[in-house]
């Protein structure tokens, strides 16, 4: 075959393959169709909430000079936090449609990254130097807090994020709306200990920070004089059966297996345990917040009702009928179900976090009297004190502290025939965890938030 002919052949072949694949995939459902994601409507009819409640001037589009904000989220195969940023974007769009911030619309720049430190550092520079963002909201990344914390410190940016890396809670320039893997695992372990288990098996995914995460449960178990077995698994999990068998064997009939994985991996382990008929061979199963999605509840059968106890960092959306929760659902329906910033995971903790972060940011921005500059915006973020987000157990405070764990009280939920039901209301994460103790020493214990009556 001649050179040109072979060139043509290869290009044609590849094009045909790609085309065939696309066509075939098109015949199947699009992967993000609502039927395969979590619940959409709340069980009880919501009080009529208009999305315009998000802004101060209903129906008036903001037309002033935009306020630029930015966010960095992980988006790679296996882990994607774009839902959080997209929900924040949806909130901002709602605000822009209803008066903006004192007439100024918010322009939100989202940078995605693939857990590459240089890329993450570059994204931060892109946001600050090129996009000229005045504040950072909505960061959710496996390592961004570690990589950028000194940069934000140098610039004087106080970011509002949903953290994962240790630095999201241990540095002065980051305050999270969530509790993160360590404190959420603490919550799950605490619940198990409260049920008087004789042994804890704590299994987590082998991503950066396992030692940091494990230290919390280790401290809790030690204080309760309960032996704890620490395990890690390489993710994505390739032999879920083996993992489940190992966990159950290690825990024993009076023990508890506590998982800290992303939802797909946690689901695969739990389903394996069910397949092998060993889910009842331990006293109970626990899971940190990522398990708290209706999707997981629906995928697990009824065998897990009151068997799996999930720590919920945010107020459970199902069975909660407050104006803020309904506003969140309404904004999702109107702004988050289509368009470039589609929230594919639906109602659940990810989009809740995005909503909460955006909510806090707008609340802070509305207190600014003069010009919107990086200095004024970040001062406003830092000044947020005792704010009732309507999504958390406690009032949320940023504050001038060397570390921030503003969300340190949680719920415990369990699957109940396809939905997550609350088993235990707001419960403090124990100060036995040294980091929690250190934070409470500087910041005290935040007041419980009353249910929001009006936004």
């Amino acid at each position, binding site marked *: 075959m001649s050179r040109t002919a072979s060139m043509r*052949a290869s290009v044609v072949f590849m094009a045909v393959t790609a085309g065939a694949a696309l066509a075939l995939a098109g015949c199947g459902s699009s992967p993000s169709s609502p039927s395969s994601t979590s619940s959409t409507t709340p069980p009880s009819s919501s009080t009529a909430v208009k999305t315009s409640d998000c802004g101060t001037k209903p129906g008036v589009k903001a037309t002033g000079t935009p306020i630029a904000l930015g966010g960095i989220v992980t988006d790679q195969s296996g882990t994607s936090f774009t839902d959080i940023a997209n929900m924040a974007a949806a909130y901002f769009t709602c605000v822009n449609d209803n008066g903006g911030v004192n007439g100024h619309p918010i322009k939100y720049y989202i940078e995605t990254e693939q857990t*590459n430190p240089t*890329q993450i*550092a570059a994204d931060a*520079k892109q946001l600050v*130097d090129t996009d000229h963002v005045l504040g950072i909201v909505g960061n959710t990344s496996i*390592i961004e807090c570690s990589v950028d914390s000194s940069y934000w410190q140098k610039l004087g940016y106080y970011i509002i994020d949903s953290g994962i890396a240790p630095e999201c809670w241990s540095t002065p320039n980051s305050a999270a709306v969530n509790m993160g893997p360590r404190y959420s695992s603490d919550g799950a372990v605490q619940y198990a200990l409260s049920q008087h288990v004789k042994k804890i098996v704590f299994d987590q995914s082998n991503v950066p920070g*396992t030692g940091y995460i*494990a230290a919390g449960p280790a401290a809790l178990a030690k204080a309760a004089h309960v032996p704890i077995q620490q395990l890690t698994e*390489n993710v994505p999990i390739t032999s879920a059966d083996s993992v489940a068998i190992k966990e159950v064997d290690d825990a024993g009939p009076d023990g508890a297996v506590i998982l800290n994985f992303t939802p797909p991996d946690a689901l695969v382990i739990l389903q394996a345990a069910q397949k092998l008929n060993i889910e009842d061979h331990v006293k109970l199963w626990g899971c940190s917040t990522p398990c708290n999605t209706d999707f997981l509840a629906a995928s697990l059968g009824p065998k897990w009702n009151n068997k799996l106890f999930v720590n919920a960092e945010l107020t459970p959306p199902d069975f909660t009928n407050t104006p803020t929760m309904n506003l969140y659902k309404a904004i999702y329906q109107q702004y988050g179900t289509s368009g470039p910033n589609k929230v594919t995971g639906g109602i659940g903790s990810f989009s809740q976090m995005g909503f909460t972060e955006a909510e806090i940011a707008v609340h802070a921005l509305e207190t600014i009297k003069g010009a919107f500059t990086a200095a004024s915006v970040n001062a406003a973020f830092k000044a947020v004190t005792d704010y009732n987000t309507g999504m958390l157990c406690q009032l949320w405070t940023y504050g001038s502290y060397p570390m921030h764990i503003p969300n340190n009280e949680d719920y415990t939920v369990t699957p109940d025939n396809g939905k997550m039901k609350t088993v235990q209301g707001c419960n403090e994460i124990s100060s036995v965890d040294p980091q929690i103790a250190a934070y409470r020493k500087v910041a005290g214990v935040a007041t419980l938030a009353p249910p929001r009556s009006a936004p």
Partner: protein
Amino acid sequence: MLETTEVAASTRHRTRLRRPATRTLVRGGVIVVLLLFALLALPQLLSLYYVDAMTEVAIYAVVSLGLGVLVGRVGLVSLGQIAVLAVGAWVAARLLFATTQPYPLVLLEAGLVTMAIGTIIGLPALRLRGLYLALITLMVAGAVAIVLASTNFPNGGHGFFGYNGSLVNIPPIRRPSIATSDPAYYRYAVVVAILMFLLVFVHIRTRPGRAWSAIRQSEPAALAAGINTTMYKLWAFALASFVTGVAGGVYAGAAHYLYSIDFPAQNSIILLAVVLMGGAYSLWGAVVAGLLSQLLPALLNNWGVSNDWLTILFGIGVVQVLTTAPRGLADQVPKDLARLGLLLARLVHRPAATTAEGEAP
């Protein structure tokens, strides 16, 4: 007939020998201008985002250079160069945390240790031929990735592995004191890259390069001509490992934080793809490969286009290069085969059978 061809060939050869002087000068001049531009002007013109991307280009150009030596010069395919990069980064990070040695020394040590490891692994593997060698590099790379996932990268902790998993505040890997800012570190990376390219260039122009050419043409023939093929193949492995190890050290300083998830198996495959596309044989090909694998993704990320399109493009590129290349993977073989024959003859120091080797198909 044979005599006429010979005379014509040697006449052409002599004529060609006069012109290269000016040609080389011009080419050299262009390269120097480009390098000066890259070093001095580029950081001023680009935003920090792109300066960071170009630092990665410099690093991966060196990695591509190493793979190019193996694939293009010797005809060995390694599917595990990213694992080698990871080892280099690991060593550099460990030294940077544990000692206060100056940066160039750390880079050198990282390169040497990686070279040692590469050679030790290469020695038994070189007994295997083409396909098996490539597959065993894939196996070793897979094993290294799993070990790294468990031992992690040094982060300032103690012990041999230097990893402390419980840190709430992870210290960054330091940069050289003269190059702490991003533009300065970019220049540092480019200088290191230039040095590595020079190192490889010198190799190519001297005895190892000629031996590699001979081995690539036909290993049995090279053996018959008295070339110690095992030694030269090992030398190629060592050189590739050394430059990749140094690149790993530069990577450590660029990233400040190292994670095992940053060195996945598929990156080795993509590296091979861009090296093939850029041209495994030429030094410029390594630069092109660096641009393809690091600058394009940065651009696409900025434009909101998914990197998956690049993956697809690279896949098409691989097949493209392989099907249109006339001979083997090292396809840009110099057309002047007579010259090659003469080089071979000089190498072997045998006055007799020059023509037979020269007239390769």
